[in-house]
């Protein structure tokens, strides 16, 4: 009976994974398409479209924009989140609870709503659509995550370390930069990488808040509006590759050092 169950389980998993990977496989396969349309039959392999995409300044520019927006907004989110987590860890009363609730609130709101809110605000305040606007939007969505992760790491151990450092005469900023930050560096790195990954792939807020200079997902979107195009396959495969790289880096950062994450 157990053997039979194993067989069914295996088959089911196979079909499920097949379904999950089907689009990925087709995407990557037809990125090497030689002819005009990324549809069967496969007339490859050819690096023609990779060449076109990587040579297209719109795309390379958008990629750079994505990286810049990602890195900057993630850094801001991590910094703000770290300081707030450190401060909140010492506020165990109702005020602390209220602040924590406020900082975590954006997690429960759809990106569409956050984006729309910023559109209305910026429109009223006269802030033009720009990469800066997107950067702000990405900090809004990533700050709660960074805060949550870093707050969960602010254990009593950290408080004790901090007390010991202060006892030895360190001033507040020294405690932060020389004691707490180094101890928490895996969590800091993990938050940063997570924010970067989310920002890098984020479409909706970027779509709403940019016009000319834009990020990669929006640029891809524009391309897609004009129909099926192997360039999209190529860029998709590139994005996939870069994302996997970032995940691998994060893995090494977190699990390589064997941190305890609760």
């Amino acid at each position: 009976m157990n053997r039979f169950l194993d067989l069914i389980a295996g088959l089911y998993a196979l079909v499920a994974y097949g379904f999950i990977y089907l689009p990925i496989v087709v995407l990557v396969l037809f990125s090497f398409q030689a002819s005009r349309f990324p549809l069967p039959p496969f007339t490859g392999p050819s690096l023609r479209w990779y060449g076109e995409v990587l040579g297209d300044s719109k795309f390379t520019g958008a990629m750079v924009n994505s990286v810049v927006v990602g890195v900057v907004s993630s850094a801001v989110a991590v910094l703000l989140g770290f300081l707030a987590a450190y401060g909140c860890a010492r506020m165990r009363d109702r005020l602390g609870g209220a602040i924590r609730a406020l900082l975590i609130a954006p997690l429960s709101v759809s990106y569409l709503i956050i984006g729309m809110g910023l559109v209305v605000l910026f429109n009223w305040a006269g802030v033009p659509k720009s990469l800066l606007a997107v950067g702000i939007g990405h900090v809004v969505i990533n700050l709660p995550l960074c805060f949550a992760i870093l707050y969960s790491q602010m254990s009593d151990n950290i408080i004790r370390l901090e007390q010991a450092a202060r006892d030895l005469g360190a001033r507040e900023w020294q405690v932060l930069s020389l004691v707490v930050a180094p101890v928490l560096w895996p969590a800091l790195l993990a938050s940063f990488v997570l924010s970067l990954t989310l920002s890098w792939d984020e479409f909706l807020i970027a779509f709403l808040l940019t016009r000319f200079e834009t990020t990669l997902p929006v640029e891809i979107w524009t391309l897609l509006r004009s129909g099926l195009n192997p360039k999209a396959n190529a860029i998709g495969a590139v994005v996939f590759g870069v994302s996997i790289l970032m995940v691998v880096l994060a893995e090494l950062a977190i699990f390589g050092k064997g941190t305890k994450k609760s």
Partner: protein
Amino acid sequence: MTGSKINWHMVLLVGPAVLFTALFFLVPLIAMAVASFTGGGGLSLDNYRHFLTQPSYIRALVNSLEVTLVVTGISVVVAYPLAWVLAERVPERWQRVALMLTILPFWTSYVVRSYSWLLLLAERGVVNRALLASGLLDQPLQLANTRTATVIGFVHFFIMLLTLTIYANFRQLSPSYRKAAADLGASGLQTFLHVVLPLTLPGIMVGAFLAFVLAIGDYVTPQLLGGSNELLMPQLIIQQIGRRADLPLAAALSLILMIVISIAYLACARWLKLERT
């Protein structure tokens, strides 16, 4: 450590994050609410009235709800057994690898992933080609630009998400529960129905809620795969900004969506409280 020492240290530490959130999250929400009540040069309920009187607008909300509920349902039904297989049948050594495999496709660009379904479901796409070649059909199916395509696109994404949440729940279950059930005379099926299933319900509900919120607010998948015959709420909202530049109406529609999400949250609140027994 009762009452906090509110000194300038605290303000410097917590202040920036709080200020930022207040300015770029709270204020926009308020601004949106205010904007939604603007119309005809002053405060009015015009936008909401507009929504309630336009059948196509109501239709969009109904479409959104229908699609989202169907997607959530299918995803749960497909993901549960997969999570079970991962948690129970895969040997311990391969657990991490199998988990990685399950979430790897998350790392393709969301836009591109939806697009790749368009590729698959297009008239001359892989699926139709395969069906024609195998002789099951003699005419290609209209798959792209339909609600079916939207549903498939969503389900593809949410299976991965739900497998994760349900899998995490499974892993967290103490093996003693199953031993105790067997010890007391329960068969495999009885153990599953009376012990395992109820105890994995939190994982299902968390995943389902996440899927609901993400799906109902998604613009990319319905726009790419669903075509323009049928609009969902996000498409309707974006439409107001684009062509018609009617921000107040868009704001009102967004708020209506937020209310729907809040209702869903209240319904699932029991399971979303992270209480450990």
